[in-house]
């Protein structure tokens, strides 16, 4: 029931309502819980309400962080392989 769908705000209707889009489907969402929302931002929608603004920088950072951790582990693995030889 705590399902959340990321959608893009395409049109601000009023201080508490906007239209959001996902894969071509446009739906009205209530934006009362996230003040200062702007068109073009991505939000997490739960039961017709935007409950949080998605932070693009953090999403990217997370992917890079994990890529770095995995690269480092691969390098350590190779180092161990060389030492075993």
């Amino acid at each position, binding site marked *: *029931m*705590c*399902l*959340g*769908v*990321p959608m*893009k705000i395409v049109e601000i209707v009023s201080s508490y309502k906007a239209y959001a889009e*996902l*894969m071509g489907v446009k739906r009205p969402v*209530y934006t*009362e*819980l*996230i*003040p200062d929302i702007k068109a073009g931002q*991505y939000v*997490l929608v*739960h*039961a*017709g*309400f935007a*409950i*949080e603004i*998605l*932070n*693009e*920088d*953090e*999403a*990217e*950072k*997370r*992917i890079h962080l*994990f*890529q770095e951790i*995995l690269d480092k*582990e691969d390098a350590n693995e190779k180092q161990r392989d060389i030492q075993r030889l």
Partner: protein
Amino acid sequence: MKSKEIFSDYNFSQIPGELEKDITDHLVLLANNIAHRKGKKIRIMEVCGTHTVEFARSGITQLLSDSLDLRSGPGCPVCVTDQQDLDQMIALAAIKDTVIVTFGDLVRVPGSSTSLEKEKARGAHIHICYNPMEALALCEKYPGKEIILLGVGFETTIPLLAYTVLQAEQRKLGNFSIITAIKIINPALHTLFGNKDYSLDGLILPGHVAAILGRKNFDYLAADYHLPAAITGFQPLDLLTGLYSLLEDINKNNPKVTNLYKHVVKEEGNIKAKQIMYRVFQEEQAARWRGLGVIPGSSLELKPEFRHRDAGSRFKIKVRPSTDPSSCRCGEIITGKISPFECPLFNQSCTPANPIGPCMVSAEGACSTYHKFLV
């Protein structure tokens, strides 16, 4: 990857990319190593029912089943709703000239003698909503009827219910009321872990409850119960990175609450949502949870200034004390004590077509998920 693509592909990309494959390889190795060292499987509870579904749907539960024992937690709102609360909601549906507005999950849950679905077949007006604000549109559409919103859910949903109550007040909709069986997660986790009757290595925390409450809210899990915990999202990449980070903390015996869902969850959560929630609701003395019994301060009730919106007192419904369905072990399943496979009814007399307990009814109940993906 360009930032714009992150969210546009976000929800529907079920095909693993290179990063998912790499993390999976490392994850399997790490899990096997820890389980080998411990001499038994690592036991992790996913508190939220949506996580139970996504772990099984993505195949992660099955892939790691040799080393990882995933247990469901009390985070499926329909599953933890007490039988007596459910009976009260069903009784409201039987009253003449009422319209029940509910999320779909509740409709098929069997009460002591009937269900909302059966009452609907008998002619009750039951409206399944996507958005609780639909209740207000129905108030205007049917001015001669009483519109009753069934308030079930955790912190993710409570601010929405609160907003709906505020709007009903503002629009002076006299025919709107709400029945509250809403729950808050912290007292349940304190009860679960405080009685020492559990053996868990770590927790996957509910991402969208955390979006409202914030990461800091969960620090007590590490501080008081020495449990490593990870806040994660719901996509395969979120699940994998969450598990990976959690397993690393378990491996290093480093209990802390890590936020792997930073693009949604802030340290303090959604302050505006919390304000709206507590403008309308206040903590109740105690509430009864299926499987956990009575937990002090674990439910919210309407504040005195909104009490006239309470359907329970408006319709003075009295239901008899009820018991959970006999031999249904839902209560033990949602507290992580047993897996659905250990319930004698599972996939025998209890199936999604003929559910006996709520864990088999709710789309995010552990039994329904296991039946769909793991049988």
